[in-house]
């Protein structure tokens, strides 16, 4: 029998208690146990960035963290992003700029971009690209994603 542990964590503002196999990745727990399928599973080794989410205020690869390690943590996935404020503005800017086509990378891209904007990042295209370098997008060529981030930083986007 696989070893299990009881964990309690906060996901998108709600307290969650669950019994999880210790080998279960955080992103698989969120998707398969909680039904929060916004965080995507791509490469499962930390390269593609599709599973990037917020753990205790810092972006984290959901495939490189075990659910059992998240015991006591506060997690925000794309489903938990508020419709207002910076997150709302960023989503509006992504729509306005066509910063997604298939959308597979978008939840991770939003998490990484929000961390950059929230830390006071400048509307510097090179710096934005460096910060988003851990998130693959195979549709847009990144240009429109950087446009959207700049729109939020420079106050052109509204929720």
């Amino acid at each position, binding site marked *: 029998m696989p*070893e299990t542990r009881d964990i309690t964590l906060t996901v998108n503002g709600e307290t969650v208690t669950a019994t999880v196999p*210790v080998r279960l*990745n955080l992103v698989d727990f969120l998707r398969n146990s909680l039904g929060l399928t916004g965080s995507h599973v791509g490469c499962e080794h930390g*390269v593609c960035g599709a599973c990037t989410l917020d753990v205790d205020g810092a972006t984290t*690869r959901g495939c490189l*963290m075990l659910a*059992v390690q998240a015991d006591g943590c506060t997690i925000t996935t794309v489903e938990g992003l508020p419709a207002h404020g910076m997150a709302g503005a960023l989503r509006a800017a992504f729509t306005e700029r066509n910063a997604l086509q298939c959308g597979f990378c978008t939840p991770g891209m939003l998490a990484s971009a929000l961390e*950059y904007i929230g830390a006071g990042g400048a509307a510097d295209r090179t710096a934005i690209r460096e910060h988003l370098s851990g998130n693959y997008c195979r549709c847009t060529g990144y240009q429109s994603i950087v446009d959207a981030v700049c729109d939020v930083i420079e106050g052109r986007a509204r929720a």
Partner: protein
Amino acid sequence: MKAADFAYRRPADLAGALAILSAEEGDIAPLAGGQSLMPMMNFRIAQPTMLLDLADVAELRGVTAGPDGLRIGAMTRYVQLAADPLVTQGAPLIGLALPHIAHAAIRNRGTIGGSVALADPAAEMPALLLAMAARIELVSLSGRRVVAADDFFLGLYETARAPDELVAAIHIPADASRRRVGFYELARRHGDYAMAGVALTAGGATGQPLASPRIAFFGLSDRAVRATGAEAALKDAQPAGDTLGAAVDSLSALPINGDLHAPPDVKLKLAGVVLRRALAGM
């Protein structure tokens, strides 16, 4: 893929962690940030029988500065290194290299001790420690010992750490704050593992000859390697002209392995490129 099954322990303190390491049978993998170990487990390159999660071991965290230099706790995360003036001033080479170490989300969890203990041949941190003449503090139930970086990295994912030991801290010598530093790496995408990279330190003022240079490459061999030939060629010299040419030529003596990105002859060429570029910034 997903990791193979394992047992999981999360001790509350260092004594508890060392007791488990000492008493339990099997292949126990200490879990620090997990940003290199977890991919290896997901690929099943690593299949430890037990993960020893060090998240609650407070004794492994924190940075202190003393007359002998810095002591950086093994569980200090990259993001904390970047934000700590003790580190960026006491070990400017680390500050210079940090933006190139993986991506932001990885730096949020990856730790200095984890990188050192895993000894990935393409990781930056082992080369940084070699270039700074850093030392690695190991702890077990039998006590503590300190190993020079030169004697610590033994081969592919192989170090001087015994199975019952943990990497407790990294010691950076006091002169690391005063030495000139250089760093350069070539990667296909910013933040990815480098195809070739170099870290170096040297005494003397900017523009003056390089006093006692220490040069370490990563991404070339089965481990981070000192380039002693290049160090000899550049010692007390200006890194230019024939001297620089001789230093680059000496790199052919390094043990270079090809990988998915480049065969050995390309890696040798890139090693010369990164050395020239790193020196140009000093």
